[in-house]
């Protein structure tokens, strides 16, 4: 793939001519639907996965705490008098009062992942969408929704890619502190779709997969903490197009737990 930015600059026509750009026009046209698609899927996945894993905590949760006390009277004489133990004859659990003031709170339960289109989004969106529409309605375009080739490609497993992966891993490794100890360690595997800004900060983070157990939820939190804590990521700026999206970013603690 040719280097897009340099071509954009060299191919830009003189101001005022209004000519469509010849070589880079396709680039944003393909990029936009893909971007919209991914964002659409990401939003859908948030509602499907994130929503339940990170559901707002139950807030009307009162726990009976007045149950167990030591009796004052015992037929065994204590050597030291018990320090003023509360005697609580009422063993009924406390009613569960609502917590309205907390429910009404505007504080966010989970920050909606940031889905602003990145700064380098193609200009003249409307025209691009029209172009796109034209393209999409062409009869030769396959319109099957279950086409198999639609999954995210991991990219060619070249040495270049593995260098990038190593560079990313060397950073996130220091920030990731998985919680050990789930009975089924596979419950602690989680994966994310991570979008990065050119400066290496997190643009958007979407949870793709986590087990529907307390361990899965805790593991998702641990992964998210690692991702945010480690930013900005130091990766070669000239290869931004290769690392702007890391998907799937998978955390698997099983090997660590065996040690």
């Amino acid at each position: 793939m040719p280097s897009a930015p340099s071509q954009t600059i060299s191919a830009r026509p003189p101001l005022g001519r209004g000519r469509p750009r010849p070589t880079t026009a396709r680039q944003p046209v393909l990029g936009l639907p893909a971007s919209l698609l991914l964002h659409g899927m990401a939003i859908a996945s948030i509602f499907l996965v994130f929503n339940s894993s990170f559901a707002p905590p139950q807030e009307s949760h009162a726990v009976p705490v007045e149950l167990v006390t030591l009796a004052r009277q015992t037929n065994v004489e204590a050597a030291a008098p018990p320090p003023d133990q509360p005697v609580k004859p009422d063993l009924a659990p406390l009613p569960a009062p609502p917590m309205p003031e907390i429910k009404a709170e505007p504080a966010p339960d989970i920050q909606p992942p940031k889905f602003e289109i990145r700064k380098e989004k193609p200009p003249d969106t409307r025209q691009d969408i029209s172009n796109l529409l034209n393209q999409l309605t062409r009869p030769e375009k396959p319109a099957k929704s279950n086409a198999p080739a639609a999954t995210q490609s991991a990219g060619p497993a070249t040495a270049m890619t593995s260098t990038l992966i190593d560079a990313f891993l060397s950073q996130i490794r220091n920030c990731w502190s998985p919680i050990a100890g789930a009975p089924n360690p596979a419950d602690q595997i989680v994966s994310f779709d991570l979008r990065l800004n050119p400066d290496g900060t997190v643009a958007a983070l979407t949870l793709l997969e986590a087990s529907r157990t307390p361990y899965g939820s805790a593991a998702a939190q641990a992964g998210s903490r690692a991702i945010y804590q480690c930013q900005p990521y130091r990766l070669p700026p000239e290869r931004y197009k290769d690392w702007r999206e890391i998907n799937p970013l998978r955390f698997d603690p099983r090997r660590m737990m065996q040690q």
Partner: protein
Amino acid sequence: MKKLLLALSLIALLAPALPAAAAIAVDVTQGNIQPLPIAIPDFLPAGNDGGNAARIAQVVRDDLGRSGIFRPLDPKSFVDHIANINTAPNFANWRVINAQGLVTGEVAQMPDGRLRVAFRLWDVYGQSQMDGQQFFTQPQNWRRVAHMVSDAIYERVTGEKGYFDTRIVFISETGPAQNRVKKLAVMDEDGANPIFLTKGDYMVLTPRFNPTAQMIAYMSYINGKPRVYLFDLETGKQERLGDFPNMTFSPRFSPDGNRVALTLENNGNSDIYVMDLRSRAVTRLTSDPAIDTAPSWSPDGRQIVFESDRGGTQQIYVMNVDGSGQHRISFGAGRNGTPVWSPRGDLIAFTKQDGGKFDIGVMRPDGSGERMISTGSHDEGPTWAPNGRVLMFTRQGRGAEQAQIWEVDVFGRNERHVASPGSASDPAWSPLIQ
């Protein structure tokens, strides 16, 4: 606008057919296990809180710090203070001190005299609330509420139930080595509120909680004869368990609390029996001429692990609860005893005696995966936290040094001394208090 919507809907329809942007896939399999830095400012007192707001926050800091999974930050390092727990905190001010978690809380005295304790747990980097709960209680129970807050935070972060709102029954030892006075005692998991249950005029050993933490079974030499007794914490009543002619010891409640497995000695031969606490019917499970003792139930109540020297040395065996299917599971070095089944069912903890050393280890119920987790030279008698992640045990000092209670997690990390009044041994962890 219509055109745009149409285009978008078409895109949505055709979306799966479009090639997606190239993304790299990354598998993270190595991390850096570190305690989670967490900021826990003093809770906010709303009205007259009786000083509980600061005290509760301190207990939460102590609980979480002791777990080894959290690292509570020094409040002196805070650059922000919480003025209202019902608004989102300024996360940037907590990132400055590298806090990854933040706990805000409030303590208020209700008109009916009860205490209302509310807290929120925040993900500082994700800028979101992870948990928010409130508790109501009598003011004298402020410590328990603090432990419940700790348990809730622990559970949200680890996915495991906490263990802070629990108690430990143990044997308190005082006096010179030749004339040791042993008293039955209980304390909170953090060592607070220690209470002696017996006076120490007769020897007591191997106390065990029942599943409601209301009753303790133990062995005592009342009248000079070693027998198993039950102590009811609610009423303070004590009773002898069963009317056996000979020595009974090593009691352990079944997971449903309705039965007790124990060892009965008869002419030098010890075997394991089960007594139904309702009918008082007794069933014999082993009839081997060797010493069979130290029974412990699987959490489903279907199996019992015990120790026996029937093979020549003391080793660990498992049988069904009707006594059938007895088979040896420990084949490692040395002698292995005092097995205790984890409340989670996945592991059995035990004491290994090898080369003059006593150490705590764990293995799977089929005997595989044996690993040692304590580092002392005389550690014995493990007991599980109700979440199956942490163990306490007795560490005997060298020479005349006093016995102490220690704890360690199931991976052998975070080994630490448990505060107790004086010398203490034979701990047994209660279930989560209900």
